[in-house]
């Protein structure tokens, strides 16, 4: 394999990492603040995909603009789901069976709602840039993947800004570290959790819209992404946004380059082996590794 081929694979892996990061970050926010594993994440990915698809096919709105519109729409949907369902889950500093069952049930409801509204046909978004490739010397960048990568980076940068430069962001980070201490210093835990849940779902919906630009989808959509999101957030350390970025990069690199040595059918096995390795060897994820580094006095 030539150096150009390897470079092209590296580009493919980086672009894939962007997709993985944006689809995992919503789960991380929700887990971090509320210690809830959002099993309905795949359902919101699916709804996000259909939201962007409907805007494109019915109103002619560009899918990229559709993704930006998905943020506020899914933010409010997330807030509503929190108000109606999630706030009834007893608070705990560990994921509870109740939360898992509730959100799994919600996923099934969303999936069946999808079948009811859209049937089971495979849908896809085809725009002039879907099959376009940006050639830079011997390297080729699929335009749509580049766009998805750029939006993913932008979204993650925006989230980073919010988390570090706003009161809400600081409250979120405080709750992720210690919710009791956060309550003592005056953080309105319920309100922050509701907004954090809304933000998490907004990211899921927008990520679904981005994925719809790359893949075909049906109401079943999202399952394989949900499993990969698990791997990424465990690799990243469950509550770390930088960890999500690193976890996404590791998974994408391993998946893409392992195919050179192993058959492509081993791809999922590789992903889940990574999950097992991370749970056994790096229970705190890569973020934990970073925190464990020796500090100089």
């Amino acid at each position, binding site marked *: 394999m030539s150096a150009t081929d390897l470079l092209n694979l590296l580009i493919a892996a980086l672009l894939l990492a962007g997709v993985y990061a944006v689809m995992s970050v919503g789960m991380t926010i929700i887990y971090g603040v509320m210690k809830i594993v959002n099993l309905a994440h795949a359902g919101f990915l699916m709804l996000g995909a259909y939201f962007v698809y409907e805007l494109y096919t019915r109103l002619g709105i560009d899918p990229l603009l559709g993704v930006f519109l998905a943020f506020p729409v899914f933010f409010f949907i997330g807030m509503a789901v929190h108000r109606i369902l999630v706030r009834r889950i007893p608070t705990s500093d560990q994921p509870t069976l109740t939360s898992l069952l509730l959100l799994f049930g919600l996923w099934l409801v969303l999936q069946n709602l999808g079948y009811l509204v859209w049937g089971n046909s495979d849908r896809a978004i085809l725009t002039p840039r879907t*099959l376009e490739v940006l050639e830079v010397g011997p390297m080729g960048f699929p335009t749509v993947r580049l766009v998805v990568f750029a939006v993913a980076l932008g979204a993650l940068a925006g989230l980073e800004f919010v988390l570090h430069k706003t009161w809400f962001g600081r409250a979120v980070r405080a709750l992720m570290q210690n919710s009791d201490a956060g309550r003592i210093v005056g953080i309105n835990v319920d309100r922050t959790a509701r907004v954090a849940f809304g933000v998490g779902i907004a990211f899921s919906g927008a990520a679904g819209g981005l994925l719809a630009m790359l893949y075909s989808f049906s109401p079943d959509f999202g399952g394989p992404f949900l499993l990969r999101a698990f791997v990424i957030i465990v690799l990243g350390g469950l509550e770390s946004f930088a960890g999500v970025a690193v976890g996404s990069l590791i998974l994408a690199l391993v998946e893409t380059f392992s195919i050179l040595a192993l*058959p*492509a059918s081993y791809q999922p096995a590789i992903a889940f082996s990574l999950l097992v390795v991370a749970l056994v060897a790096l229970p705190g994820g890569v973020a934990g590794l970073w925190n464990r580094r020796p500090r100089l006095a």
Partner: protein
Amino acid sequence: MFRRNGVAGERALANCAKCNLRKSNSLSRPWILLLLTLVLPGCGKGNKAGTNEIAVGVVLPITGREAKPGQFQREGIELAIQQINQNGGILVRDLDKKLPVKEVFYDDGSDQAKSAGLVERAMTSDNVVAVLGGYSTALGEAESVMPDRYQTPWITTGAAASTIFSRGYQYIFGTLSPTDLLGYTTAEFLGSLVDHGQLQKGLKLALALENTDHGVDYGKGIGKWIEEHPGYFAVAFSEKFDLGSTDFSGLLQKVKNARADIFLADAHLQDYITMHRQYMQTGMYHEMISYGARGPESDARKALGDATNYIFAGIWWSVKLPYPQVKKFAADYQASVGRPPDSWYPATAYDAMRALGTAIEQAGSLNKTAIRDHLRTVELKDSLLPGQVLRFGQNGQIHTPFVIVQNEPQDKVDIVYPLDAATGEAIAPKPR
């Protein structure tokens, strides 16, 4: 009661015997009465259905992932039942009368476990003479363990993997030709293009196969044809991929490095769309491209646009087949459901029900083993399927040929192989 109702009564008695009612000396009387209350209505129901009508179980997915093809298959079966009943039903010689067919339908929700359970229920509680269903391979595999257990014929209308038919089961039948024949026909079609001078001899093939029985069988079929026809093609690359993959860039890079002339994949619709998008983005070119049985689907053409032009596919049936019975079926189907047949789904189901009806008539009774025996020899000479004759092979599966269709610009699709059914000429090599 059992004596009065003849064969079906004996069967119901046998069912009751299975429930150990006759042997239950140790049971106290109230328990026996309770069990009789629970069990006998079921036996009676089966009896009644057995004498006044012919109950046929249909287990298909009309919700869940496979809802769309499941619905199409159900429509095919119901059209056949409707036509049989309009002709007065099926003549049962033993009873000396024609009986209408009654459909006992269950939706398996695209769930394997549920699917098997519902087939079991139809075969036991509903006392059907046979069960039709089993779309797709995964659901068919789950269902296929039941027919021999309950000695009730089962005809799968949508599962083709050879694993289902290679276990020596005696009560299973299928109206889809095996997937290895799809691979074989694909290679045979390419070979015919070589013979006609449209492709060169000795071209290299790259194979990307889904990691399922379907993919394995497809690859085997191609390999078998190549082995039987040395010098035509050589396999330069062959690799399996996982269903529902999120990225094919690594696999496609390997395909690119293989520098093959022809690219043959076997994929489900979602993977076909994702893989072909990425294929186009790599800028690769192959003289011919196929994704197995996928290609002409309207969903794919919407998702990929002109990128699907000249892709060819092997399919079990096409509405374009130039047989009068196909034209009649298409018109009847349109009149029945208000739209034309989509892909092959309703046709194999329609023929399955007609084959069952013929077998019952030839058996002259509602005895399930007799029906099974006649299914083994039944010949539907006005079949909709390619070749126009449907007969089940020794393993229960039919072996009708596949038709090769090729996409053309402006959403046109032509049958290009076999030549006696062709509606257009194959375009090969594919224009760049």
